[in-house]
């Protein structure tokens, strides 16, 4: 019977069906994995306190220690493997569960994460007064709040301490914002102007116009800036002295009491005391921080705003460059060029360029745009800054240009497809009514092809947003000191390097010293990137489908 069943070919059909199902599982599984891992990162986890029997405890050492931390992960390990590393566990099962616990307090213990064997964990409970402090350095703190002091004087302790801490943190946060505004905004701008003055002086020297008069002008401007700077520095000093006043003392899981300045605390909460609503509020606060804040601690904590900003700006710049050129090329190929073998070859070539590895474009961009074009631009227009290059080094302009070349085939193909779908009757009608070819193009053909150009542009953006390899050569950095767009004239700084979501994933996931701590953040970044790209693709598909419907109406 089974033999007969095989003869019908049915089993093969089922196996083919299984291939589809497997592909679907992979796609949806990947998206779900990233979504779950990325989104759950911001949810405040309960912090556990437990006693842990040390695996190889001897008589002399304390047999058990107190453990405070979040459970991050678990896995099954076989007894054999444990034996191999010298842990003998008495159990009748073949495997035991091993928990990855985030205990934080890197400044005290040296590591954020610890692997713990489940069977040794006893007396698990969730005390409400455990606090979690997110800090500007050394990662999270877990423990108990003891006292709060101001300039070394204790001002609150015991039950009063927590409300006092919340109050004071609000104030330090406000101060922090103010300090940052001055440092990044005002002082940054003065530094920028100083640098401009230095370059202006060098320029005068190069042009042999460094007369006493000209130099004096520069000196007065510099003096003025120095004066402004002195005022700001004084102001800043006052703010800092206020900022650095408060501190708290808190007890870690080993019972040690440590002093933490309020200035170092970003956020404090008692995870086990939060109710659902408070948790949701905290969740969205953290999401907000992630999207709108600068990164901390070598990009492994804090937000990714500069990366989002860099990606968006680079992609926008690219689409401004790529759309007109792509459209012109497509219009030329479809409407003006003589159709024949040559256009067919060009069409195949353009189509195939989309399949050329992106790293090749990166190499081209580095060699041609940066070293050749940029190097010459520097010689001609930025000689005063040499030998430090201005455009002769990777930057956002070159990245956009490189990606524009990478994505131009996408725009050409999509636009051409749109143009070819426009019924001939429409063109001929327009020409028959006496319109010139240009008028036909501008008034009827192009407007009708707009949606297809949109599709092309969206697909180009979607491709560019996810591309990392070429950017590693032509412009991204792990940490850019300033955004390519700011309040200093000329506002757009096309020569600057920038941060990028995709590169952020690569860099934090693979180059950072503390991968375990950074991993959730990488998932969140990946989720954001995928979200944007899937959304762009879906909108392209939607536009394309609507377009087809429209033409179907015209054709019939």
């Amino acid at each position, binding site marked *: 019977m089974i033999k007969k069943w095989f003869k019908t070919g049915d089993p093969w059909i089922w196996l083919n069906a299984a291939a589809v199902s497997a592909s679907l599982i992979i796609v949806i599984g990947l998206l779900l994995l990233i979504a779950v891992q990325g989104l759950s990162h911001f949810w405040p986890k309960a912090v556990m306190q437990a006693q842990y029997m040390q695996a190889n405890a001897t008589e002399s050492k304390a047999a058990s220690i107190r453990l405070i931390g979040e459970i991050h992960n678990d896995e099954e390990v076989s007894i054999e493997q444990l034996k191999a590393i010298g842990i003998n566990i008495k159990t009748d099962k073949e495997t035991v569960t091993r928990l990855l616990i985030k205990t934080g307090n890197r400044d005290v213990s040296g590591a954020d994460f610890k692997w713990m064997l489940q069977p040794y964990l006893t007396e698990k409970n969730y005390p409400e007064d455990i606090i979690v402090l997110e800090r500007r350095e050394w990662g999270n703190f877990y423990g108990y709040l003891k006292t709060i002091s101001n300039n070394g004087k204790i001002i609150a302790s015991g039950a009063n301490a927590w409300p006092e801490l919340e109050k004071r943190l609000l104030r330090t946060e406000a101060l922090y914002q103010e300090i940052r505004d001055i440092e990044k905004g005002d002082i940054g701008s003065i530094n920028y102007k100083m640098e401009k003055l230095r370059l202006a002086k060098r320029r005068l020297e190069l042009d042999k116009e460094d007369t006493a008069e000209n130099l004096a002008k520069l000196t007065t401007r510099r003096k003025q800036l120095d004066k402004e700077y002195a005022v700001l520095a004084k102001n800043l000093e006052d703010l800092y002295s206020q900022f650095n006043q408060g501190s708290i003392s808190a007890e870690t899981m080993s019972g040690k009491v440590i002093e933490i300045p309020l200035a170092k605390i970003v956020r404090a909460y008692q995870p086990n005391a939060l109710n659902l609503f408070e948790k949701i509020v905290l969740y969205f606060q953290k999401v907000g921080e992630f999207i709108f804040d600068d990164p901390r601690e070598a990009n492994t904590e804090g937000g990714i705003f500069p990366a989002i900003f860099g990606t968006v700006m680079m992609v926008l710049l690219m689409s401004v460059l790529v759309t007109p050129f792509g459209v012109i090329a497509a219009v030329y190929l479809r409407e003006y060029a003589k159709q024949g073998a040559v256009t067919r070859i060009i069409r*195949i070539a353009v189509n195939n360029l989309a399949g050329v590895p992106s790293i090749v474009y990166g190499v081209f961009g580095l060699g041609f745009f940066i070293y050749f074009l940029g190097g010459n631009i520097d010689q001609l227009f930025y000689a005063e800054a040499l030998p430090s290059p201005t455009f002769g080094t990777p930057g956002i302009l070159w990245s956009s240009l490189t990606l524009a070349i990478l994505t131009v085939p996408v725009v050409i193909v999509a636009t051409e497809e749109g143009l070819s779908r426009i019924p001939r009757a429409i063109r001929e009608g327009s020409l028959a009514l006496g319109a010139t070819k240009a008028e036909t193009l501008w008034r009827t053909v192009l407007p009708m092809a707009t949606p297809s150009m949109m599709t092309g542009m969206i697909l180009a953006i979607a491709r560019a947003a996810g591309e990392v390899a070429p950017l590693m050569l032509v412009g991204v950095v792990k940490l850019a000191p300033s955004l390519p767009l700011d309040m200093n004239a000329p506002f757009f700084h096309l020569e600057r390097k920038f941060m990028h979501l995709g590169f952020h994933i690569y860099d934090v996931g693979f180059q950072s010293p503390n991968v375990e701590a950074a991993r959730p953040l990488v998932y969140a970044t990946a989720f954001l990137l995928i979200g944007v790209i899937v959304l762009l693709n879906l909108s392209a598909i939607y536009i394309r489908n609507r377009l087809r419907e429209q033409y179907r109406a015209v054709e019939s």
Partner: protein
Amino acid sequence: MSNPSNSAPTAARTLTTKMDRSRAIKNRITSISMAVGGVSVILSIVLIFFYLAYVVYPLFLSAEMEKSAGYPLPAATQGKTLHLAIEEQNRIAVRFTEQAKAIFFNIKNGDIVKNIDIALPKKTNISSFTTSRLAKGVIAFGLSNGQAVFAQHKYKTRYLVEGKKIIPSLIYPLGESPIEMDESGNHALTHIALMHDEERATLVAYTDDNRLLLNQLIFDDELSDEEDAEEISFDSTLIEIPNIQYVNKLLIDNSQSLLYVAHNNGEVSLIDISDLSDIQVLERKRVVPDGTEITKFTFLTGEISLLIGDNKGNLSQWFPVQKETGLTLSHIRDFDSQHSAITDIVTEQRRKGFAAIDDKGQFAFYHSTAHRTLLHEAISESRLNFLAVSPRANTFITEDDKQQVQFWHVDNEHPEMSWSVIWDQIWYESYPEPSYTWQSSSASNDFEPKFSLMPLAFGTLKAAFYAMLFAMPLAIMGAIYTAYFMAPKMRTYVKPTIEIMEALPTVILGFLAGLWLAPIIESHLPGVFSMLIILPAGVLVFAFAWKSLPKDIRTRVPDGWQAALLIPVLLFTGWLSMALSLPMEQFFFNGDMKMWLGDSLGLHYDQRNSLVVGIAMGVAVIPTIFSITEDAIFSVPKNLTFGSLALGATPWQTLIYVVILTASPGIFSAVMIGMGRAVGETMIVLMATGNTPVMDFSVFQGMRTLAANVAVEMPEAEVASTHYRILFLAALVLFIFTFMFNTVAEIVRQRLRKKYSSL
């Protein structure tokens, strides 16, 4: 297809009024600007190819040289030349003479810049001469009284109003008092050799009464390269090496542990001097063909390889190789013979190139690793005696028998490049045998860069192979089902879902592969492999069970929805094999499969290996292959399948014998395009492998691909260096490779479309 452009001139001609004229002009402008714009966009795309080729091209150029001056030997009366050298800026050259003079002269015209007397003890003269590392300018003189002088020529650059000025000097880092080599004090040193580093120096000398002496100097302070370095004191250990006679030339290697003695009969002794209390002659062997004798015996930069020239013009390279029997001097390669006695060999100071002159006035430039002769020219009528190559190897000077000096410029940018360097096995210095190696980073000038693209090309194909192995069955079978069996309603959901995967940034796939998948696979190895059996088996069991179900249950799920039914089945069987992984590991592999692989199969397990890359990159190419295959199968004309079904074939038979056969060119082009994508993929391999350039088929080892290599090394490559251009070459290879793949695929597809439209 009609040509709409034909209508344009007709329209323009009929416009006559003034307003119409402006419209005609606008029309003209539009068509011109469109043509210019369109053509320039297309040209700029072509530019990519030409720019890559333009950067790569200089690699394949040969060297060129040009004579820039000739003049009589400066201070010819002050003794015969011992040694010639040129300083860094190519402005000043120096001639050390037998009469203990250091004559610094302007390289362009021979004017003497400075004439320094070398400090010798009274009543002695120079009986032998040697250099240590050429780039350091350290030299030593052997004297007629058995002493030696250790000196160094140095150049300071001063920036003065009238321009750069170079001030030569001769200094004595160990002090002016000579070093005692032979305590008897009345035997001249006829041959001498010196090697030094910051901590110590070794001097070996041969006396006129046939004794071989060795003196090891341990410095009390580091020998510095600073301009105003102070004299340093040293401890000296003097010993005699017995039983070595008929010495012709002496050399000491860079670690000061091997002494090479060339004998008068064309043999070389290899002597281990690393332990002064136990000096051993390791080997004595002939290094030149019978009937010839050694005329020049010197080190290649790095002081590892010996270059040997003989009186018939043969040139060969030798270095010691560790064999089972111990260290043996091995013949590495021969260079093109100059056919007349070699008079001097001088190595470049920063590359593994060298130049040689002979007694017929010929000059030639060679490169050792690349095994190339870059230049070969007769430049003099008479015998050439001495040669100096500048530190940057862009100029050289020669001295001939008629006491004429010639000054030449050389343009020799990329001598280390040849076809065999890229694609053949090369015997690199200190390697036990020829190998394919990629190792480009150079910490020092002595480093021999290894530019074999073979391991990278191999890694690229290996990664692509495993990716295709994973992707092809899934994508093609999936496409067959989707196009041919799936219910149309389900197809409208399934196709875009799989296609959206194409838009997934590869950096995310790479990240998941490296940080999520790799650890899972590592800890569930048996489970992953058992999936290959458990999954299909589970599907078949389910299918059979489903068939055996009563009909009224079966018909509740309409035909063409099998894939949806199978999702839970696959999830369950997948989970099952993962859950069974640990027990299987316990049962079959003693609890640790990785250890088992290493012990019983000898396979090394990398956490980020080809299996991980194969799966991750497979996921990246599945949508490409799926989408194109699906299109090809779906557009097989329906009349063909209907005909087949009407003749009584089952759907499966129709599929196998009609549909797939017709669509096979489409499937082929899908595979080609998928392959092209896998070959050029960068981020996934960068993140999911260890990026070590090894050549190993094992699925448990990583690789380094061309694309990943470019991404890793390009930012560090110095512009216009050989390394930089070779990376461009890698990019060009990738470009051509994928472009060809895609073109073939595209042409096949277009033909197929034509065929369908005729059916």
